[in-house]
């Protein structure tokens, strides 16, 4: 029996993806994209060819494909057609995380939390059920060439099951490409409650998987022979983890730095879990642990001086003395992460990590040694495979979903501009980016002189623990600054103060009761006013407004 490629693909998709929700076959037009340079990703480049789209799928691809009589013809005039990009690090359409609640102190070592699920401890959460996406949020991403995103909450320990979402306007649950894709997990605890720190977080993970293993055993035993056996408790949290311990649902672990990566791999080994690391920013430091695993590598390169004390950490390992050289060296290593992982044989996709400079950052990875063809695969077919959608997305092949990007020249070349996007065969216009961003590679701040922030500031912070008034004194020296912050917690020194244009970042380490936490601030200055956010370690995050005192 001869099937049309589209029908065959649908059949394949249905057979391989029983978990897929109803496939989104919109009643879209039939298109013939002619005179295109086709970057198929999986089957090389067709210098001049035609792609036919029908009912949301790619019907035909090739140098000598006949244009169907009912097709609308779009002559690309030699422009490049690439598969739509996938970004596997997105929180699109999810409500902002609720402020973590400080629960009861608990006496006598009671381990069970009171009441229902707590934020970040709800593996039963299903993104597909709560997705609410506004077209205004979708368009900026799609304009970058991204046609599908994997949506999961960005914080928390057990975050729930993700969904692969096509970037159509007014996308709803019925349009979802695939759900659940994976269970998502991270290393944030519940401030003021158990697990409050990394110590508790890792133990909570382990205890949960032991509990889930037992739940799987009970369910199996009950299914085989329910007579004479107490029925297993209906526990939504545990039931959500059962497919993970059975190896049926992949576990995506948000692990950026070296130690998180090693911890994630240890957990995977202890419970024989199918793990994909998300972030993996310091993967180059943990190649031995990463061998044989897969990763979603974020390209939102942290500034060495501003995040996890990179310059400091790396200077411990390299030539002492020259901190500027250390920072440059660190930056080189960070941007070369993907290339290093590639050479080590790690299977990975590249993802934005939440940065709008997705493609410019991928280009940096290429500049740092990642072959361009591998980079393109990593944002298309590899990402599709890691999302369990390699059969329906990620390349330009007959039968795949018609998610396509039109650009002038190779998508990863410096001068490439995205001029059109197809999602599920629907054509979307692209608004050209502002000139400044396009010219400066998205780093407009780099051209501005550092804002002048010297003086005394009254800073009002709203944190999960309540509001706090802070007096901040700043002594500026060019693009860096020092000073102090005084609050009810005492007076503490500012460290790593940096000013890039109007963006100000600094850190402060707070000591209390034999513990220390480092708070990382980021603000935007507007004259004598500043607004921003603060990452409070295990205490979550806070927002602040500040005003310079006259």
């Amino acid at each position: 029996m001869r099937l049309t490629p589209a029908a065959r693909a649908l059949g394949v998709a249905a057979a391989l993806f029983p978990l897929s929700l109803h496939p989104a076959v919109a009643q879209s037009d039939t298109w013939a994209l002619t005179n295109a340079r086709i970057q198929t990703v999986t089957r090389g480049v067709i210098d001049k060819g035609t792609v036919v789209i029908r009912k949301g799928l790619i019907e035909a691809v090739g140098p000598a494909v006949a244009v169907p009589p009912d097709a609308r013809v779009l002559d690309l005039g030699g422009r490049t057609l690439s598969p739509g990009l996938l970004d596997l690090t997105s929180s699109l359409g999810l409500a902002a995380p609720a402020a973590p609640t400080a629960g009861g102190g608990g006496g006598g070592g009671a381990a069970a939390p009171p009441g229902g699920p707590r934020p970040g401890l709800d593996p039963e959460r299903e993104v597909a059920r709560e997705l609410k996406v506004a077209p205004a949020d979708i368009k900026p991403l799609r304009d970058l060439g991204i046609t599908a995103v994997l949506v999961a909450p960005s914080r928390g320990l057990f975050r729930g099951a993700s969904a692969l979402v096509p970037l159509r306007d007014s996308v709803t649950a019925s349009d979802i490409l695939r759900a659940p894709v994976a269970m998502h997990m991270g290393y944030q605890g519940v401030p003021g409650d158990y697990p409050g720190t990394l110590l508790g977080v890792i133990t909570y993970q382990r205890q949960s998987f032991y509990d889930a293993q037992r739940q799987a055993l009970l369910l199996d035993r009950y299914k085989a022979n329910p007579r004479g056996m107490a029925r297993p408790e209906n526990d939504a949290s545990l039931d959500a983890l059962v497919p993970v311990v059975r190896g049926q649902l992949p576990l995506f672990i948000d692990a950026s730095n070296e130690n998180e990566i090693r911890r994630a791999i240890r957990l995977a080994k202890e419970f024989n879990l199918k793990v994909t690391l998300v972030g993996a920013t310091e993967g180059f430091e943990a190649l031995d642990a990463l061998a044989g695993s897969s990763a979603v590598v974020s390209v939102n390169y942290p500034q060495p001086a501003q995040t996890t004390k990179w310059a400091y950490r790396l200077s411990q390992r390299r030539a002492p003395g020259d901190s500027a050289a250390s920072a440059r060296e660190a930056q080189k290593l960070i941007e070369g992460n993907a290339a290093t992982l590639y050479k080590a044989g790690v299977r990975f996709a590249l993802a934005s990590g939440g940065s709008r400079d997705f493609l410019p950052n991928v280009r940096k990875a290429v500049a740092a040694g990642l072959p361009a063809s591998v980079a393109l695969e990593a944002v298309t077919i590899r990402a599709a495979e890691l999302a369990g959608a390699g059969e329906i997305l990620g390349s330009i092949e007959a039968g795949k979903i018609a998610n396509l990007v039109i650009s002038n020249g190779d998508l990863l070349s410096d001068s490439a501009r995205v001029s059109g996007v197809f999602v599920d065969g629907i054509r979307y216009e692209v608004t050209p980016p502002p000139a400044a961003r396009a010219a400066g590679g998205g780093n407009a701040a780099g051209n501005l002189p550092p804002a002048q922030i010297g003086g005394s500031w009254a800073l009002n912070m709203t944190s999960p623990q309540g509001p706090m008034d802070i007096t901040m004194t700043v002594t500026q020296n060019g693009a860096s600054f020092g000073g102090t912050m005084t609050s009810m917690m005492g007076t503490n020194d500012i460290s790593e103060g940096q000013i890039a244009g109007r963006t100000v970042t600094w850190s402060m380490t707070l000591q209390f009761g034999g513990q220390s936490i480092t708070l990382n601030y980021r603000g935007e200055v507007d004259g004598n006013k500043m607004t921003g956010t603060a990452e409070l370690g295990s205490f979550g995050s806070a927002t602040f407004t500040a005003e310079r005192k006259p």
Partner: protein
Amino acid sequence: MRYSVLLVAPLAAGTLAAQGPARPDSSRPAPPPVLSLPIPAAGTLVAITNATIITASHGTIEKGTILIRNGKIAAIGKDVAVPAGAQLIDGNGKYVMPGIIDAHSHSAGEAINEGSRSVTAQVRMQDVLREDAIGLYRELAGGVTTLNILHGSANTIGGQNAVVKIRWGLPVDSMLFAGAPPGIKFALGENVRQTNGPQIPGRQQRYPRTRMGQEEVLRDAFTRAREYQAEWKAYETAKAATKKGQLEPIPPARDLQLDALVEILEGKRLVHAHSYRADEILMLLKVAKDFGFRVASLQHVLEGYKIADEIAAAGTGASTFADNWAYKLEAYDAIPFNAALMAERGVKVSINSDSDERARRLYQEAAKAMKYGGASEEEAIRMITLNAAWQLGIDKMTGSIDVGKDADLAIFNGHPFAPASRVEMTLIDGRVFFDRLKAPTLESLIEMLKRRQRPNTTSGGAQ
């Protein structure tokens, strides 16, 4: 390159060598042959010759030799023949002592206190260690080879400890001390009551608020542990009685917290208890007796001198500060004679740091026990070596310079208790993990800066 820190030392040495003979201190002896890192091949021989050897177990040997084979001490004495091919470390004028053991450390912990509950026996320090914590390197430079990395003192039953050897430059997993019995942190008194320090806004206060409550927490926890233990025993019995073809019984739910507590009841997990006052210590010893376990060490134990006999009778060690006191109410009755007085009454005493800073100079802290209370030199040495090893249950493997033990050694340029002495080299399992001549020390940094300010010196140009 995975762990390029291993390159730091040769790199710094190379920088200095480029300047010819102008070493930071040209009167120093030539460096010993470079020992290869990482793991020495099987049969690797190292000999430290002609050194003053402070054994900590059987006195001091003048002009002696230590022979190391495969990371273990193979021979010690004045007349040890050095086999051909052994790598030599010239010990002339040097003092070798056992690698220092810090029985109370929080180095390298990315989190210290899971203080959210009164009992967190389930959490483990080994899960949260980071191998790049610079404190580790500084401790190595102070002759420390082994650390008891403890959970903090926020709650009555804290987390599980990690005993590590400071194999600086290797992944943190390979720092864990193989064969060290597992341990756990308990805490009593003011820290648990949360009466010191600022209150975090919005944070609820946690039970217990008194020392009475702390006893209740302990008794409640071990009562639960006994029930859990019985549950598992019943399961094992039922499982053993299962006939062929019959379905095996379903095991009880595994509880990581109770697992750890049962291990304490079974004597498999050592209790290290943060405590200050005599009354709370007596309470803990009574609870331990009632539940049939031994407390391996009391930590801080600043009032230990008041109840030294009771501590000794319980077979419990005491790990104290040399002379810290009055930093909170429960530390007011501290006296610097504490260590020596407890030792005199037969308590195995160690001096600990509880601080990345003090840990670098524990040998000076130990010396204070001679000054205050008149401990013998060997007794004072044991307070940072063999006694600490005993408290951690690793005294068969390390803690003294004896044949068959791990070659964990600190080499000083003078007597460790002399004020100006400092560590020249630290060995763990016979491998040199710190060598002052090759380390990126202040001296080598100053030399680098000088060179940068005099850019033409290498070409013999302008002065």
